[in-house]
């Protein structure tokens, strides 16, 4: 599984570049690199449906962010004054978070051997009960269809919110 490590290291590098680059357009393009690395990870982890959806969503996020940044090309960012207390606080919080994360990871099952208590039922009964050959689709649209209904509701709400924020008519000057 060395290729997973290599791609994840590449994603961390791209994330650092995206956060620390000065121009906004450069940051947005580096964020696209993170998303494409995630697509490759999903393909290697045997999740082809997720890879397709992540590819489409990443391109849409790239288009949205470029729309937000393409009008201005001046790096108008007031940088925080860096002193030793700031750096010390940052390292302290990151260290505490990573330590607690490490302790929490010790309780998980090992990588590559998941406990599939619920999923075994889905795998053995998907074909008889739903008739779908793709088990992910059968979970998404049959076993857990109310989650998908909630997802569509959230998507509708966000679209209505975006239209209400960006409307041109009926706005007080």
């Amino acid at each position: 599984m060395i290729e997973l490590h290599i791609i994840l290291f590449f994603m961390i590098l791209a994330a650092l570049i995206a956060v620390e680059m000065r121009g906004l357009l450069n940051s947005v393009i580096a964020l696209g690199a993170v998303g494409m690395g995630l697509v490759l990870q999903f393909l290697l982890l045997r999740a082809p449906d997720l890879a397709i959806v992540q590819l489409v969503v990443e391109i849409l996020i790239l288009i949205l962010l470029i729309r937000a940044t393409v009008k201005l090309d001046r790096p108008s960012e007031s940088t925080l004054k860096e002193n030793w207390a700031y750096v010390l606080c940052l390292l302290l919080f990151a260290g505490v978070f990573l330590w607690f994360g490490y302790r929490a990871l010790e309780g998980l099952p090992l990588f590559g051997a998941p406990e599939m208590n619920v999923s075994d039922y889905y795998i053995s009964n998907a074909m008889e009960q739903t008739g779908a050959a793709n088990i992910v689709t059968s979970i998404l649209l049959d076993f857990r269809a109310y989650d998908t209904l909630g997802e569509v509701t959230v998507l509708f709400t966000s679209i209505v919110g975006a239209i209400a924020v960006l409307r041109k008519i009926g706005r007080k000057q």
Partner: protein
Amino acid sequence: MTLYFMTFILFCIGMYALVVKKNLVKKIIGLVIIENAVNLFLILVGFRFDAEAPILEEGMGKMVAFVDPLPQAMILTSIVIGLGVVALLVAIAIRIYEKYGTFDISQIRELRG
């Protein structure tokens, strides 16, 4: 184990951008990085060695092992919801830029008086 820990580092980078950076677009970028890290972590937890993608084929025996399909279905929902969140955030950021002419939150606070 190292893979899990590297996703935590990715999460930390996104959190750093979300908390420290003063540019609104940088904050949105940090949020997207956090989303990517959490999605990747949950898919890694459901991975199984020497297993197939959860798609049934003709003539496939009962003994074939699949990777965990439940996190994949839930993360599919999560990715699409993430797109909706980013769309709403970008709309609000564009509106703030139209009103104040900057993405910098410290300058916006100064403009208010």
